[in-house]
């Protein structure tokens, strides 16, 4: 019965696509504007002339710049990210392999952050100015101020080094003594996920809280909250049903900023925990000057954000009937 405004969605899809095009172009510009040429870093003195020539050719460096650009854009849109010199496979394959692993970490932290954050924000916004609000808010800001890798180390020190409860690296047990079934694998992944998830979420929820708190506080002034009280509803119902539901609307639009923040945390955390995802990949690629991989990894993460943003747009239309019926914006 509730139909989502097709026009609104169409608009968001067009914007998303344009965004991806611009990100691709940006990548192209960034790489070609490198001091010297970016392939110098891939060439070592042992290479033969032919080898060097072949690299130049695969990168199309002999073509005029605009042809290179067109070719680059076509390749990227068809999912052809070139070949990696260090991993010596097609970059796209590498991406496909790494993406699900990263999604597990990104996705779970996103979910945890966007459950905890709005809940705490709701509570603080409702009681804004109270002593509880002041102390919880300033402590969450302290959490928000912690370097993510540092807090991860502290967690490892406590839960792994000191207590020995949880593993401190990798996604799977390296030499498992159990049978590989879907269940054991899942359990094993969750076991390895625990600390990285805790580390990113420890900081990541604050972003959502920072949006929810003032939003909730604004909503308490609204006429419908007053009316809900006048109807004799309990404070709890007024807060949860009438206030929080409306206060969530800006959180959905702000979710994308928080998502980017969580991704930043996750990229660092992947490196701390040797989680074999995109974050680890992009850092390794950059350090080993494997530009095809770095470039593609960056693009995939950006695309992930764009897709997530489309998703939050849908959530947004669900939350706000004014958009759902194509009348707001």
């Amino acid at each position: 019965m509730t139909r989502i405004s097709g026009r609104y969605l169409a608009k968001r899809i067009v914007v998303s696509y344009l965004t991806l095009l611009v990100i691709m172009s940006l990548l192209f510009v960034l790489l070609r504007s490198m001091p010297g040429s970016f392939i110098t870093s891939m060439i070592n003195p042992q290479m033969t002339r032919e080898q060097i020539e072949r690299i130049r050719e695969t990168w199309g460096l002999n073509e005029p710049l605009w042809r290179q650009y067109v070719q680059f854009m076509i390749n990227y849109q068809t999912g052809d990210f070139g070949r990696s010199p260090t991993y010596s496979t097609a970059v796209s394959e590498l991406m496909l392999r790494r993406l699900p692993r990263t999604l597990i970490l990104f996705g779970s932290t996103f979910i945890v952050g966007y459950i905890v954050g709005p809940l705490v924000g709701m509570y603080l916004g409702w009681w804004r100015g109270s002593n509880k609000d002041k102390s919880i808010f300033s402590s969450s800001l302290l959490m928000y101020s912690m370097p993510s890798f540092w807090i991860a180390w502290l967690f490892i020190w406590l839960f792994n080094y000191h207590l020995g409860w949880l593993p401190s690296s990798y996604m799977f047990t390296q030499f498992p003594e159990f049978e590989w079934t879907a269940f054991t694998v899942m359990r094993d992944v969750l076991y390895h996920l625990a600390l990285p998830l805790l580390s990113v979420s420890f900081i990541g929820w604050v972003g959502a809280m920072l949006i929810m708190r003032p939003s909730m506080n604004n909503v308490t002034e609204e006429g419908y909250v007053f009316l809900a009280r006048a109807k004799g509803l309990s404070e709890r119902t007024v807060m949860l049903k009438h206030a929080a539901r409306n206060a969530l609307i800006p959180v959905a639009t702000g979710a994308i900023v928080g998502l980017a923040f969580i991704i930043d945390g996750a990229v660092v955390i992947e490196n701390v925990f040797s989680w074999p995802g995109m974050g680890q990949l992009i850092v390794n690629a950059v350090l080993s000057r494997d530009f095809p991989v770095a470039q593609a990894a960056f693009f995939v993460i950006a695309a992930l954000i764009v897709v997530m943003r489309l998703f939050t747009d849908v959530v947004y239309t669900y939350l706000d009937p004014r958009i759902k019926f194509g009348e707001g914006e």
Partner: protein
Amino acid sequence: MDGTDDREPLVEVENVRKLFDLSQGIVDTVLGREPQPVRAVDGVSFEIQRGDTIGIAGESGCGKTTLGKLLVKLYEPTEGTIRFDGREITDLTNEEEREFRQRVQMIFQDPFESLNPRMTVFNTVEEPLKINDMADSYDERRRRVKEVLEDVGLGPADVYLDAFPDELSGGERQRVAIARALVVDPDFVVCDEPVSMLDVSIRAGVLNLMKRLQDEYGLTYLFISHDLSLIRYMCGRAGIMYLGNMIEKGPTDDIITDPKHPYSEALFDAVPDVALGDERRRANATGEVPSPRNPPSGCRYHPRCAHVIPPDDWTGSQDAFRRALQFKLKVERSDIGPETVDGSDTSDPTRELVEHGLTLDVPEEYRSETEMETGGSRVDLTAVDLPSDAREALFDAAEALNGGDRDAALGALDGVVTTVCEREYPEPRTAGSRSVECHLYGDDATSATDSGVAAAPTED
């Protein structure tokens, strides 16, 4: 107030239109969305004589504020011309524009928003002098500012000079705003609801101040308000606006004691009065003001009008025609269909729908008895004096609606339920001392009565 036309008018507004395009983003353009401008002011003409106070009245969204802002050049008109002191204000040279900015000022509605919270009273009032290079020195500006502050009743001025707006009361703020407008000694001041945010006991003081300053400074006012009693108190002449049109203009007393346009009539009927005694007549208008983004065709008021004009060959009563027109409008707005009736009349669902569609959304005193009995959900068909062809058309339409075919329903009504008010915009015409934009008056009016009050409901 009449008969002053031999003087040169200070402000002449000729057929001015102002459309606000809702901005079209790049993406909307790509997706081919139709732009739908808001027709804020839609063809308004009038003149203001020197020294007069002319009132602009109307409900929210009628375009009165936009009109005011057009006159002070805050907006550029989309169409039409505005002349100030004989000069068209759209093509002023820089020098002329400076002069214009000195001679024309505006006072805004909300005294809590019209003063910059980070500027002192002195800085606020001084600013127009500074911008227009009107005083040579700081001391001179200070002297002038003090003088004006005392003129507007904020004396001794020294107390106020260094105050910030949030330290002042609403009445004091509005006086500061007036001082700011008057500090450059203007000729023409547009006052946009200057007292609507003020408490009643303070209002009169500001209004009387404005009247006094008019004499002292030789001002001409355009006084915008939704409050008709204020218009009456302040203005010799007035114009009533509805959806961007000035539907009636003339001497205020005449408009109020004997409104010509059906909308003016409804508007004045609706004003409650402290004078107790006889029950006041309620406003005879259906529904609410439609969106200015998509205004009705012809006379903008015809969908709500009590005196909407039936076609020449209409043999029934005017009330019956008004009801039939309401039926048609409900079909157009998709406000009627099998789901809007409760289906209690299983024997004749078509008749039920017709009787539902013919009801009027008006105060009780204008409803028929059968309407009252059903709580406004049905009207007895026999009590509506419909011509037979109209009756047939309505039944055809209702049948089509019950069958789910809205277009066929509209087709059935087409040509039968039709009115000049819907087809043509009424050009302004003279009625007594006023100019009225209504088909009831003038040559082409068929059922015009001079008072503008048409026949009472048909049961009589």
